């Protein structure tokens, strides 16, 4: 649906060159919710703006709906943009126009008939839950309501792609959640491919299927949200994961780790799925001659599925503990990783 091929974007300001995107390759499948996370200045905004050519790549191709937008004439490009909706951090609504006119704007630009416009706008306002606000002005609305208007406006032309540029960064946590739910609903109801740019790992955890980590214009890590949460390969990805999932070992546990011996060993178990964690440990306690002691744990939810991280102490005969580890390693379905935290 969206493909980045070797995309580089260089800005020149005051004789200095800044590389906002550095040979980015990315592929987003139809119907996916794809998140791109990074710190400010990592190039996220440039990345999303290269999709609808608000910014033109310095080199490389961006292909949307099997079209290389850079090869289109201005007229064809405007037509193509109708299939790409976009919402913004600061909503970017027309403050001088009512909610109705704001949502109607893309249709008015296409010179649709009054009747068609009216029907579509009320349908959209109904969908985002703002039908009764049609005659209001944006400054009478809350941030969440403004973003709903922005979403309705972006959907007016029935796009196949929705770009979200830090769409929840100016909102409080409750509002963020309701907007994310709405995005998920849009994705499911209309099969719209959604590209989300954010610096909040919570957003990725909440609704994304896949994630790419951007740092200094490069995609340093990408994969399914499960993969990246379970096994972040880079330090930055790990840092982002730990903002929503406490997985650093607390100081008190560190002391225990230092005191471990061959008959008293500590492991980290990462698991996915609601039946994974506790039964595994209770089975081990039954089947093997070891004491199982959970020292520390955190569980978060990834797309409705629990995702856990346990620090567990096994006490018993060294050979018996090795058998336990071998057993856990065979249960690949539920156990993502068993790490020996050697001191």
């Amino acid at each position, binding site marked *: 649906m969206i493909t980045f091929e070797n995309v580089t974007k260089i800005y020149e300001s005051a004789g200095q060159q800044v590389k906002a995107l550095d040979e980015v390759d990315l592929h987003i499948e139809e119907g996916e919710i794809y998140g791109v996370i990074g710190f400010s200045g990592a190039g996220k905004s440039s990345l999303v703006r290269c999709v609808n050519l*608000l910014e033109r790549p310095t080199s490389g191709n961006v292909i949307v709906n099997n079209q290389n937008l850079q090869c289109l004439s201005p007229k064809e*490009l405007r037509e193509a*943009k109708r299939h790409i909706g976009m919402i913004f951090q600061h909503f*970017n*609504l*027309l403050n*001088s126009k009512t909610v109705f006119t704001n949502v109607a*704007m*893309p249709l008015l*630009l296409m010179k649709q008939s009054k009747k068609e416009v009216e029907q579509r706008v009320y349908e959209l306002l109904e969908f985002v839950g703002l039908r009764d606000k049609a005659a209001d002005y944006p400054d009478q609305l809350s941030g969440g309501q403004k973003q709903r208007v922005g979403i309705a406006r972006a959907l007016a032309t029935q796009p196949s792609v929705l770009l979200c540029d830090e769409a929840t960064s100016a909102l409080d946590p409750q509002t963020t959640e309701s907007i994310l739910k709405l995005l998920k609903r849009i994705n499911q109801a209309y099969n719209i491919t959604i590209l989300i740019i954010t610096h909040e790992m919570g957003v990725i955890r909440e609704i994304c299927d896949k994630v790419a980590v951007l740092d200094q214009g490069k995609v340093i890590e990408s994969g399914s949200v499960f993969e990246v949460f379970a096994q972040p390969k880079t330090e930055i990805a790990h840092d982002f994961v730990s903002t929503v999932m406490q997985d650093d070992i607390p100081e008190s546990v560190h002391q225990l780790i230092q005191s471990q011996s061959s008959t008293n060993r500590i492991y980290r178990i990462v698991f996915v799925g609601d039946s994974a964690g506790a039964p595994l440990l209770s089975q081990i306690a039954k089947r093997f001659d070891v004491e199982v002691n959970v020292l520390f744990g955190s569980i978060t939810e990834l797309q409705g599925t629990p995702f856990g991280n346990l620090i567990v102490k096994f006490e018993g005969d060294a050979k018996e503990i090795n058998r336990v580890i071998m057993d856990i390693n065979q249960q690949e379905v539920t156990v993502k990783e068993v790490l020996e935290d050697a001191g």
Partner: protein
Amino acid sequence: MLVDWNQILAALGETITMVAISLLFATVIGLTLGILLVVTRKGHLWENAAVFNVLNAIVNVFRSIPFIILMVAVIPFTRLLVGTSIGTAAAIVPMVLFSGPYIARLIENSLLEVDPGVMEAAQAMGATPRQIIMRFLIPEALSSLLLGLTIATIGLIGASAMAGAIGGGGLGDLAITYGYQRFDTIVMIITVAILVVMVQGLQTAGNILSRKVRRR
């Protein structure tokens, strides 16, 4: 001392005519120049350094010439346009040349205040440059544009007073020739009072209109 009210009314009519007609032409020129000064800027819709620099320089030149000198300097041009260099119609030509570039600057300022995010949204939804100007830029700046035009109108009333120097007529002319040069204090006070009321009224009307446009 008798006050000739008919004379004062006639002068008021001349002032209103001069200001209204100059404002009309100056707004057309100012709006065009103002929009061009914004959209030819770096990073804008029709980025064009040459056009921007030339327009910018022209506006600055006209803005730096004192009105009284401009009036005399453009006499040949005025004669070419309206066939005479004396009278109300003749005064309108320098007033337009004086006010147009001023309005261009005011409009440029108002348009630059429009949130760049709104422009970005317009581009993202595939608006043509013309649509961006007419449906996004101007409506969003309208409230501020109206305040700018109010200032420009009041400036034109001031300029119209000086037009008396070329026999332009109007209240300012009356105040200078009768009030100042003939020591007719009462006429001077009356004309000045009328001017004060006009300016007050205009500013109030401008403020109300601007507020109305801002929201409903």
